[in-house]
């Protein structure tokens, strides 16, 4: 994470330290209203049945999870004061904090944990998270035992606020469809550090301090206001003129750079390791065309100047990602072929694959889509880059997400730029892309590349059950090596997600889950 901005900031901080202006970490102050942002209106505020960061951010305040994580991927007690694997790795025992209550005063029991797991398993789009949880046993009010059909190393990570909010059974267990439950968006009763006050679409989510929070003395803030501002420039202006205290998940690099140069603001890319956002160029390997040939895919990768993307488009604010696992993950294996720009090699590979240049200098034509407006520059850049090796590319317009998703998920495409999240553990966010069992028509972010490799399937099956971290890392090393050779997807970079906060903000959420972690430690200085 040695990038220009941070270095710059570090120097500033260092100078400040020398001058002695920042004595020591300040003690938290109680009170104040934190004004932060959401880049879109959440569909509702219940992360149990809705993925995504705009639900996750307020959701993590409203609902507590069994565990929380520090910046080193180390699990910390939260609603569970302790937890333990069985020796065979097929059951996980959670011991809940005593005396914890929901916002309406009802106690939080193991029944609620069981209910939450069942609800998430049935309704959350990430099926692999709790797919192997067969039952949840509740021997007493404060003990919940998750019984698994096979070992599941990703389970611990899944027990964080973004993925496993503990929701009250007495509210959501009333028989209504949890996905469209009226209490998802209004009058929400949760278990977390902040209570629901107001949710007005396109305006704001307002939360207030939960005085009966199960951790004594927290949270520090009286209120959190999430202002829903879709326009990145408007958020930047708001940060600069002091209307906003903090904004997360910023990825418009010019604005990040600009804000980082503001003396009142701090910009950092810390906190997104578990989110694991990666930009990539996906190929439809199952099509009849040239893309079925891995040499063609490799040639395309060689023809695209990754450095341009990293430095010119991303302004050096994002990291190179050579594989499908986020560089922030301990499982990332960087020593694979990164396909640095090599036009000659690209041409040679294409010739070898039998696609000679025609009289007009064109070998063949492809189309390219992009999954959201932010990857439009990459799509346009690809068009320009591939023209140099004789591949004619038409950029398809992006109108709306469902249209794109429908097209890609039904394998009606050649290439598409996409942004996909790791969601902490490869089992949750990585396997889905390469698993030949997961070639499912109509399902976006499944294996839409139609990539099938038996060895990869085997490796994923093993790694998904391997509890020993070293052995697991070895499995993923091979996994990443094979993929880098087969190249069903050309990974280029992480998303330049940044958190920008005013220096008034103490303890900004810089753990691995960024804003989807509880803000009970966040405070406002002075």
């Amino acid at each position, binding site marked *: 994470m040695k990038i220009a901005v941070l270095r710059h900031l570090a120097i500033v901080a260092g100078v400040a330290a020398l001058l002695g202006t920042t004595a020591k970490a300040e003690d938290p102050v109680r009170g104040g*209203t934190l*004004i932060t942002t959401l880049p*879109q*209106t959440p*569909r*509702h505020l219940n992360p149990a049945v809705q993925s995504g960061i705009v639900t996750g951010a307020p959701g993590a305040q409203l609902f507590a999870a069994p565990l929380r994580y520090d910046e080193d991927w180390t699990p910390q007690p939260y609603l569970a004061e302790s937890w333990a694997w069985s020796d065979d790795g097929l059951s996980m025992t959670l011991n809940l904090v005593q005396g914890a209550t929901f916002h309406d005063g009802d106690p939080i029991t193991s029944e609620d944990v069981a209910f939450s797991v069942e609800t998430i398993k049935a309704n959350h*789009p990430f*099926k692999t998270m709790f797919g192997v949880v067969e039952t949840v046993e509740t021997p007493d009010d404060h003990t919940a035992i998750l019984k698994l059909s096979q070992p599941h190393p990703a389970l611990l990570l899944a027990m964080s606020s973004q993925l496993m909010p503990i929701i009250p059974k007495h509210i959501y267990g009333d028989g209504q469809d949890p*996905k*469209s439950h009226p209490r*998802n*968006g209004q009058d929400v009763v949760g278990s977390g550090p902040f209570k629901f006050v*107001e949710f*007005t*679409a*396109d*305006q*704001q989510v*307002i939360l207030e301090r939960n005085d009966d929070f199960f951790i004594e003395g927290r949270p520090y803030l009286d209120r959190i*206001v999430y*202002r*829903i*501002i*879709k*326009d990145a*420039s*408007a*958020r930047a*202006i*708001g940060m*600069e*003129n*002091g*209307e906003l205290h903090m904004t997360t998940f910023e990825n418009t690099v010019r604005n990040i750079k600009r804000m980082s140069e503001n003396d009142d603001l701090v910009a950092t890319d810390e906190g997104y390791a578990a989110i694991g956002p990666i930009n990539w160029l996906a190929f439809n390997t199952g099509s009849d065309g040239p893309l079925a040939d891995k040499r063609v895919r490799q040639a395309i990768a060689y023809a695209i100047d990754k450095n341009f993307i990293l430095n010119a488009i991303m302004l050096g604010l994002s990291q190179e990602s050579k594989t499908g696992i986020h560089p922030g993950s301990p499982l990332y294996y960087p020593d694979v072929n990164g396909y640095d720009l090599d036009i000659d090699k690209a041409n040679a590979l294409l010739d070898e694959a039998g696609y000679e240049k025609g009289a007009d200098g064109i070998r063949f034509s492809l189309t390219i889509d992009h999954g959201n407006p932010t990857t439009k520059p990459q799509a346009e850049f690809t068009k320009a880059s591939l023209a140099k090796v004789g591949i004619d590319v038409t950029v398809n317009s992006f*109108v*709306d*997400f*469902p*249209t794109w*998703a*429908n097209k890609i*998920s039904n394998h009606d495409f050649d290439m598409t730029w996409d942004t996909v999240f790791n969601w902490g553990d490869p089992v949750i966010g990585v396997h889905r892309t390469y698993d030949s069992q997961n070639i*499912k*028509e*109509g*399902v*976006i972010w*499944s294996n839409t590349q139609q990539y099938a490799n038996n060895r990869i399937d085997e490796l994923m099956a093993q790694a998904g059950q391997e509890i020993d971290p070293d052995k697991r890392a070895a499995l993923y090393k091979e996994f990443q090596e094979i993929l880098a050779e087969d190249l069903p997807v050309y990974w280029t970079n992480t998303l330049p997600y940044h958190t920008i906060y005013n220096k008034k903000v103490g303890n900004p959420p810089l753990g691995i889950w960024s804003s989807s972690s509880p803000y009970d430690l966040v405070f406002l200085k002075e």
Partner: protein
Amino acid sequence: MGFLVVLAQRTLYGLLLLLAVLVLNFTMINLAPGDVVDTIAADMGGASAELVAQIRAEYGLDQPVIVQLGNYVWRVFQFDLGQSYFYNRPVTEMIFERLPATLLLVFSAQIFALVVGILLGVFAAQRPNGILSHIVTLFALFGYAAPVFWTGILLLIAFSLKIPLFPVAGMRDVTVEGFLPQALSVAHHLVLPMLTLGSIFIALYSRLCRASMLEVLGSDYVRTAKAKGLSPRDVTMKHALKNALPPVVTLAGLQFSAVISGAVLVETVFSWPGLGQLALTSILARDTPTILGILFFSALVVIVGNLLTDLVLRLIDPRVRGKA
């Protein structure tokens, strides 16, 4: 003719128009390639053929389009615009949440544009070939010729960033309490969006008002007013202006749909929590019931706007009162 009779007639007619809007939009969306079920299925993380069929049945999409249309219209007449696919909430509820913001923006921009436009027009008509008159006309054109979102962005940079006089986004400051401070906060947030949206129409209104004033100033009854020995101010403001207004008001009435269109862009720039933002979200999410609902309500706003225009016209022009 009785005023209430006219009102009733107009309302009835407006309802018929709304019905037509409903039918057209519904048909159009059903004609379009792609099916909402795909969207729902994709969102659910994939669905089997049976599940797709079940969803179709659930949403009544397995029936012939004409039956669906009939059902839809019937439900609309019961004030039920359906359930949003995306937000899983009643469309009516979501629209009513945002309608006040849009109405506030649309009407304040209209009134702002009318007031400024009329003043500029009256001023320019005093000396129709004077330099000042030309400057006023050109000035008014600025707002018209610049893309509205561009104006908005420039204003935002100027008055939120460089000189932070106005807030950058939203509709109110949630940290203030009490009715009056809240109202002031809303007014404060409203300034830039209103100026931006209104600026498009100033040129239109001032130009027409100028032309209308020139015509009226040349009319026989203005000559009569002068022959009575009235002061130039009385002649202009009492005798001429009231006669010059009807065309301007009529034009303003015709502009309602354009104002709403502008509002979509302005809302996007200023994060104004109105229908426009919801519209963009629902279009990008293919949230058909919401799109239909928004089109329906925007048409309703236009119709109500036209109705109000009619009422204002009746108020200022006795000749219209006699007619239906």
